[in-house]
């Protein structure tokens, strides 16, 4: 992998997701809620610890980010407001950027946004239509 600066990658994930992995208390409610559990190589509750440990390479190789249905159950039910789904999505975005697969220039996106549209919904839509 081309990344050497683990710290900056971790910061990037935190920035993209807007969530704080240190809040996680390992209750597993996300993993208990996840409909794609069987297909995920890194389980939802593990994302926080991967980020805390700085295991960025594993996250970037993980298929889990693409198995997430973006159903938001983990985000809704997380008692600590870690919002694991956002961490999963941030890992996916990192992988996409790594691949240089941004089909759209970032500055074009804001014009397309409706104000009340959740950002993640947009992202998951992109993901689907690109297949």
């Amino acid at each position: 992998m081309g990344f050497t600066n683990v710290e900056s990658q971790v910061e990037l994930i935190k920035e993209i997701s807007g969530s704080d992995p240190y809040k996680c208390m390992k209750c597993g409610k996300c993993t208990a809620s996840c409909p794609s559990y069987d297909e995920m190589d890194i389980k939802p509750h593990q994302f926080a610890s991967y980020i805390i440990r700085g295991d960025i390479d594993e996250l970037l190789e993980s298929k889990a980010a693409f198995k997430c249905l973006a159903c938001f159950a983990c985000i809704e039910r997380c008692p600590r407001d870690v919002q694991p789904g956002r961490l999963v999505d941030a890992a996916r975005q990192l992988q996409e950027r790594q691949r240089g697969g941004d089909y759209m220039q970032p500055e074009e996106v804001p014009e397309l946004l409706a104000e009340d549209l959740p950002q993640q919904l947009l992202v998951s839509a992109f993901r689907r239509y690109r297949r």
Partner: protein
Amino acid sequence: MQKIGVFVCHCGTNIAATVDVKKVVELVRYEPGVVYADDYMYMCSEAGQEKIIEAIKEYGLTGLVICSCSPRMHEKTFRACAEKAGLNPYMVEVANIREQCSWIHKDKEEATKKAVILARAAIAKVNLNTPLKEGESPVTKRALVIGGGIAGIQTALDIADAGYEVDIVEKEPSIGGRMSQFDKTFPTLDCASCILTPKMVEVNQHPNITLYTYSEVEKVSGYVGNFEVDIRKKARSVDADKCTGCGECSAKCPLGKIGNIPSEFDRGLRNRPAIYMPFAQAVPAVPVIDRENCTYFKTGKCGVCAKICPSKAVDYEQQDEIVTVKYGAIVVATGFDIINLDKFGEYAYNESPDVITSIELERLMNAAGPTGGHLERMSDHKQPKDIVFIQCVGSRCDSEEKGKPYCSKVCCMYTAKHAMLIKDHWPDTNITVFYIDVRTPGKNFDEFYRRAVEQYHVNYIKGQVGKVMPQPDGSLLVQAADLLDGKQIRMKADMVVLAAAIEPNPDVRKIATMLTASIDNNNFLTEAHAKLRPVESPTAGIFLSGMAQGPKDIPETVSQAGAAAVKVIGLLAKDHLKTNPCTAQCDTLLCNGCSTCANVCPYGAITYDDVQVMDHGLRETRRVAQVNLALCQGCGACTSACPSGAMDLQGFSNRQITTEVDAICR
């Protein structure tokens, strides 16, 4: 001109590590009025105090500035020290260079600068200090306990046994509180009623205790030693003097069968009549009529209870009554409830009658409960074979919208208790407990939990439940995580029990406001000091007992109740209390009678009087403010609100405060 001594404390390294103490001494030595300045390792120690006393005598000091910890910590100590040397205690000022300086700063140079500024402000103030004398106020030797659960009962009994009169105000028709709803108690598994009812009876028969049940505190005025409280005795519609507690009225009330009035005591698991006692061992054994549901009160027809009552005790005309009583001390023991579970749709509590809370399970296991102690599902009255317990429902949550940030403390233990009790009665039941952490600090607590695992084979799984799905066949499908085995589990259950977070009784907010007792973000009452004054409110004369102060189990509640009683007894044993001399004064020549001060005064200490004044030779009648010094607590609200500068606070005069500000800005 004052002769001021400045004493700078190191507090070991607490202050000295961040503040250059020697430098502070050198820089304040030449402040106006300062004739002596020194530092010492521990100013509050005996040697430190000796140093202060010697300096007072040797240099004839008339004022002291102690640069140390917060005045909340040691102001009393240093005032007493000054008094020992013959100095008026109110000539002492404390500059807080620990909590407000060394502890919160890292940079030594900056912190030292700030310490000097804080010292200068205090010196400037002492220059204007005048000796003040404490007054005396009498103590009413009677205590009020708000709440008649185990906390209130124990506090009241302890105070009453010491020979003081106590009143208990309980808003429900009976005392007993939450504990009376429980089946057994951990870790010894005594039956809750067996240990509680004797205490309830003792309260009822104690010559020093007066019970106000079905009553609420309506208004509180006064101050420590001299509270005046209005208690609303809600109309019971039953004459307590005539009633024999035979229960005929409840048995014959037509609404008992057809009324659909959920019993509060049984958490809605069965219905009750409109005239009712919450439970058989209620104290007092006098029913009340729930006027909102009673047919007679709604339509004027029925009247069965009045007709059937052998002692003619039913009285539909009874009115609410307000009694006013004086107290020296007030104990808040308002207890707890569990949170509303509407936010936790994933657990299907509102969807399935077989998803219940732990407190409902207590009722279902209780021999006096709606099923006579036979555990059954509320949907089909069958005995559950597979039971799932879910821990931490709404506890340990990050944000207010999710739940409560604290650990409810009692759930781990009562869940182990429930599991064992069920296995004791019905050994072939399969019990699974989903937990995040099992927390069992307490005497014989971990042993208790291990017994559930080792002897009763209760299946403990680390991981939270994601969702509970009611199935067409009437069972519940539970989807959960097993974090230690790295699995997602789907299992069928006949019953799911939720360990819902506890929260303070919602009424506590209203009561705390009346008492001006502070509460925290979670509505728990705040202690005067978390470690050293845990059963006192920062508001003098108000004491804390039980869950109202924070989550705790029965043994802890009883200990705390006793501790609160001791503090109350200590107060009531005094004939007089010293009053704070830092009270407000009105300069009648400046007062224009605008009422601003009276409107902001939280203690109702300000009244108005017409006085005759000579204004440039003209005799005039003016309306001016007067402060009742017995009521004034010296909060200073009036002095800052007064538009004409007529209100001034002794010991914190407007001039002293502006001088302090000047010294800081110099």
